[in-house]
């Protein structure tokens, strides 16, 4: 049973991150997940100072609030003319530094860092279950990430055309009356909710990796946005399944193995993609010369 829960959790993370990740990759904001993984530090310190406990619910709330602040600041700076990569870099380093100061001022004697408080380990997912009325309804992570996935699917399918045109041509979108800023913030909000919800159960590397690697692979394999999202979900889920068994075989980190598999798939796509592939392009160039 625990195998099932771990693979299911991996697949849920992969699907959630795959959907929002596609839009991030297309907007050249792929590293936003990494940024959130660092910038939430002040959030958990403040949550600890207010609540006085290391209870995961408070930590999660603190992280979620700072996660939203992070993406809103990044979007705000970007809209006022800062390059998107610079804007991501400025916001997360500054917030992380604030977190470091807070830790050094108030919580020096308590073990309070991201690794032990916020980042979970996917191998422990099956044992952290929730009960309703005495009945065990499955791991907390599955419910948390499942809800985040549901939210993403509902919002992105309902407003697919708006998200698409806002990513491709925001000026045109604004001219026809689509509230571009609202959809940018909505997307960023989804990113923040899904990453923070996942960090707690599966750790940073799996989330950041699933946000970038499968969408970047899918980008090489198709020329339609809807298919890019589907392929990215499929690749992410496949990476979770293969990665889990690879980890069992090697007796190694599960999250690490899942991302390694995703990275391997990316390499295959980079070499053999029919349209963007390195090898195929070389053959075509040779043919042109001959």
């Amino acid at each position, binding site marked *: 049973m625990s195998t099932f829960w771990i693979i299911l959790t991996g697949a849920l993370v992969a699907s959630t991150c795959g959907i929002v990740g596609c839009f991030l990759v297309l907007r050249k904001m792929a590293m936003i997940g990494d940024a959130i993984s660092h910038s939430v530090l002040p959030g958990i310190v403040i949550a600890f100072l207010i609540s006085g406990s290391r209870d995961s619910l408070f930590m999660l709330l603190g992280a979620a609030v700072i996660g939203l602040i992070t993406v809103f600041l990044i979007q705000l700076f970007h809209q006022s003319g800062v390059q998107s990569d610079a804007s991501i870099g400025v916001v997360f380093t500054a917030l992380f530094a604030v977190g470091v100061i807070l830790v050094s001022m108030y919580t020096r004697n308590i073990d309070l860092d991201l690794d032990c408080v916020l980042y979970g380990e996917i191998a422990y997912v099956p044992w952290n279950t929730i009960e309703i009325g005495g009945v065990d309804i499955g791991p907390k992570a599955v419910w948390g990430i499942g809800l985040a996935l549901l939210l993403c699917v509902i919002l992105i399918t309902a407003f697919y055309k708006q998200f698409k045109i806002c990513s491709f041509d925001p000026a045109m979108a*604004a*001219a026809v009356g689509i509230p571009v800023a609202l959809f940018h913030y909505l997307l960023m909000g989804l990113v923040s909710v899904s990453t923070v919800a996942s960090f707690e159960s599966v750790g940073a590397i799996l989330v950041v990796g699933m946000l970038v690697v499968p969408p970047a692979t899918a980008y090489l394999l198709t020329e339609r946005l809807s298919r890019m999202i589907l392929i990215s979900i499929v690749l992410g889920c496949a990476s979770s399944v293969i990665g889990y068994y690879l980890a069992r075989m090697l007796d190694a980190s599960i999250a690490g193995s899942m991302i390694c598999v995703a990275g391997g798939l990316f390499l295959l796509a980079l070499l053999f993609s029919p349209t963007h592939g390195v090898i195929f392009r070389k053959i075509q160039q040779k043919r042109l010369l001959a």
Partner: protein
Amino acid sequence: MHASPLTIRDLSVAYQKKPVLQGVTFTVPEGKLIGIVGPNGAGKSTLIKAALGLIPRLSGDVSIYGKPYAAQRKLVGYVPQRESVDWDFPTNALDVVTMGRYGHLGWFKRPGSAERKIAMECLAKVGMEAYADRQISQLSGGQQQRIFLARALAQDAKLYFMDEPFVGVDAATEKAIVTLLNELKKQGKTVLVVHHDLATVKEYFDWVMLLNVNLIEFGPTEMTFTADNLQRTYGGRLTMLDRDTSSTLIMNGR
């Protein structure tokens, strides 16, 4: 009284502290092809973006067929500069043209076969129907520009704003655009075009707007597009080889 397609009163726009447009006031006549001409940094694109509400304005007011822009969006078509979007985006030509219908679809309705049919017709009007399934990064610059024009046609507007549609296109596309502009004019539509090539202004446009931060002159081309007015617009950066006809113009400092 019949409302003009576009009336702008006392429009000023500034980036940081420098004014880009200052006190621009004009009324556009219906059914004309209008060229907007001026040196680099004169605020030509800014004028269009401010009229469409894409950038904040310091002062001034814009009315389209007698009402504010927000109420008249469906009457307005917009062709942004070609470089303003990422042409590696995973989508094809037909899909981009279909985006022209999004404004008519409202919040929840999805583009369906009716929208695709309109998009296909618009592609045909710019001679691109054979490229409907082509990924947009595989199109040439001229073809990409025609896709943008087709998308504006799909908006089925009465007033069009086009931001430098002639920049970096091949001769065939230039001809296709001119044909299309005249087609639009025949249907009684009004088109404002930001234009760079002074040599073709007289040939392409009925009216011309000379702009350099301030509105220098605005009127029918034959009366407005004169050597004197151009000198006032471009200052010393313009050399006229043939003073009598002003048909040969050379721009310096570009």
